């Protein structure tokens, strides 16, 4: 295990210096070639709450099979963007196209049916349901046999299998995050969005969560990741966008952004070498 992990996986925009030990390193990408097809296209998206614009016309693409991350400080509009994509907030302007379908006029139920799922901020597992029932709920719209996918998520998260019949509320924070991801996978999405999956977790668990994110991506899943833990997110991502007060101010590959001076200063800590 790592000895000098000094990680601030929490609120605030001062992300601590992280030296990840073990785990796949920089730019460890999938072997197979990427299709390059754009799966999700967000164009000029605006989201407002009672007249206050949280998202002020942003555009970005998520290519199939890649990990794309939105990083930025608290209140930059990252979560609002994800919520608008999945229909929990109404877009005040712009378009969201997924696989050729326009999402802004659809309800959440339909959007999920179209193959997008969101692992919400704060995990939000159904605490009164068992682990197994949570997974069943993830597959709510499916009418086919779930056993193969249950085996698959249990192989990704062996600890969930041990706690099969336990109420989700009795799990630890890290286990709940794993369950939230597993639950999302059970819908067999084409794209999985994650809102702050590292929030409030111990550094070692954060590392585990990111290992899983890489693993499911390696197996072909497209991922749109929102994080305040910019360092971890940029290391994992193919592509990153920096959001500030509702606008995208920078974009580039994960590695480019991780080495960008502005990003370093604002999100990775000034002392970053």
């Amino acid at each position, binding site marked *: 295990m790592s000895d000098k992990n000094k990680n601030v996986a929490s609120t605030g925009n001062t992300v601590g210096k992280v030296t990840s030990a073990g785990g796949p390193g920089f730019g460890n990408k999938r072997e197979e070639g990427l299709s390059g097809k754009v799966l999700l296209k967000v164009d000029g998206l605006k989201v407002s709450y009672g007249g206050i614009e949280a998202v002020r016309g942003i555009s970005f693409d998520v290519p199939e099979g890649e990990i794309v991350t939105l990083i930025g400080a608290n209140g930059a509009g990252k979560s609002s963007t994800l919520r608008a994509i999945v229909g929990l907030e109404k877009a005040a302007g712009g378009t969201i196209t997924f696989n050729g379908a326009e999402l802004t006029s659809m309800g959440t139920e339909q959007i999920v049916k179209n193959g997008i799922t969101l692992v919400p901020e704060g995990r939000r597992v159904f605490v009164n349901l068992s682990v197994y029932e949570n997974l069943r709920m993830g597959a*709510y719209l499916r009418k086919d046999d779930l056993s193969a996918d249950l085996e698959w998520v249990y192989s990704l998260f062996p600890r969930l299998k041990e706690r099969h019949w336990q109420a989700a509320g009795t799990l630890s924070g890290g286990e709940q995050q794993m369950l939230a991801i597993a639950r999302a996978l059970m819908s067999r999405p084409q794209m999985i969005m994650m809102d702050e999956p590292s929030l409030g977790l111990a550094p070692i668990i954060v590392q585990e969560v990111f290992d899983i994110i890489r693993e499911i991506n390696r197996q072909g899943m497209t991922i749109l990741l929102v994080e305040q833990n910019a360092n971890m997110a940029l290391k994992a991502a193919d592509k990153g966008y920096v959001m500030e007060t509702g606008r995208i101010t920078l974009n580039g590959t994960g590695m480019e952004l991780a080495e960008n001076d502005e990003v370093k200063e604002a999100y990775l800590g000034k002392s970053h070498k």
Partner: protein
Amino acid sequence: MDFLSKNLPYLLAGISVGGQYALIAIGYTMVYGILRLINFAHGDIFMVAGLVMVYSTTILPLYISIPLTIIVTVILGMSIEKIAYKPLRNSPRMSVMISAIGVSYLLQNLALYITGGLAQVYPTIPFISSPITIGPATTKVVTILTPFLMIVLVIALMQLINHTKIGMAMRSVSTDFETSRLMGINVNNVISMTFIIGSFLAAIGSLLYFSNYPSVIPTSGAMPGLKAFVAAVFGGIGSIPGAVIGAMLIGIVENLIKGVGWTTFSDAFTFVLLILVLLFKPTGLFGEAATDKV
């Protein structure tokens, strides 16, 4: 022996009324579990079920009017939710509650208008209205039938909630609307389902309850509704077993109090119980602990 023979009729009546309260109380507790709303119109839905039965039997045979009563009651419950509660989904809880009180008065006054304020004689349903003798007590079949029918319905409901997909969805929605939507659950359908079940049970309760009474008046639903509400609070609002136990207890104690000759105080007991529960154990017998969702 003397005590028993003297009190058996009251005990039987208590079990029966308790079963009827339970069928109403489940509607309160389920709606609260999902919407965090006390559906004050629920008792009046129960009354409307009584009136529908009265009017439909004047022109239709029983085997049509009974199912018709159940269907009309279910549609009424569902429509009330769609018209009076759904548009207020994102409003403060107080607004929805006031809307519920409004619906309650609306139903009572509509009933007053339609009945002209005259007590409507409830039809006699053969078999369940026929007399039966149990030891020293003579009562109606409905008295004996009610607790059994109630238990069967509750078991069926618990099966539905604990072992079916829609039941799982109901439990999910009761903890977290938004995340339920993320699972692809249509939250509005689940809420409708809750009102369908609640109104269905209220309709059955109404058939049983009014078979023991000569007539229906526009305020007939108020008192049983209030008592069922107290039962739901006593059992821990949101909990179905709690509502059933609370209702049985209230029904039995109320009637035993009548048995010892304190009829005047039988209603008072229920409301004193409400005050005591709210003072000393606001979450009731099986209520969820008052922790906030994380």
